């Protein structure tokens, strides 16, 4: 299987967010929200660091 960097990172963010949401909160709604929050944080870091590397690299 050949995934590019972006696809690999999305997949990693997805599986990590599922487990983090599952084990952290008490109710299903809180778990869903926290999982989505974690996924959003992963995406923010992905795009933020990606753009930072592009701008710093020139």
């Amino acid at each position: 299987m050949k995934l590019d960097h972006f696809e690999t990172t999305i997949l990693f963010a997805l599986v990590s967010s599922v487990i983090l949401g599952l084990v952290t909160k008490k109710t299903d709604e809180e778990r869903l929200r926290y999982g989505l929050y974690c996924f959003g944080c992963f995406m923010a870091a992905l795009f933020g660091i990606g753009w930072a590397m592009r701008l710093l690299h020139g």
Partner: protein
Amino acid sequence: MPANAVTEAPTAPLKSPILLIPLAWFVPGAGHFLLGRKGRAAIVFATVLVTFLVGAAMRGPLFHPVDNGDVLSRLIQFGGYLGDMASGIFYFAAVFLGYGPLDVAGYAPDYGAKFIVAAGLLNILAVVDAYEICTRQKD
């Protein structure tokens, strides 16, 4: 019982953690399943399995402890080995089936190795969660 007696919440473990924790490690999601959290058990099992399989499909190598090399290399190899083994049955099935990808250049096997370790680390999170449910620290 007197009318003003306070009913205390039960504090005894739901099941024996001594049996539950090794089983939860060996079969991802088994701890939640035995505690009656079947939906969460299925999600844990599927997530750890998918993560491990993606790592294997990317031809990620398994870590092995080494005796030679510098301290940092040995530490990384040993930590990766523990992370791989934390996947439980998936790791042992891979070893039993002779999984050992060729060492090829490219980023995909590097990501694959990390995915296999991540599967184990996610399983550890699930084991800790099962322990906390078992000891009534959380629901």
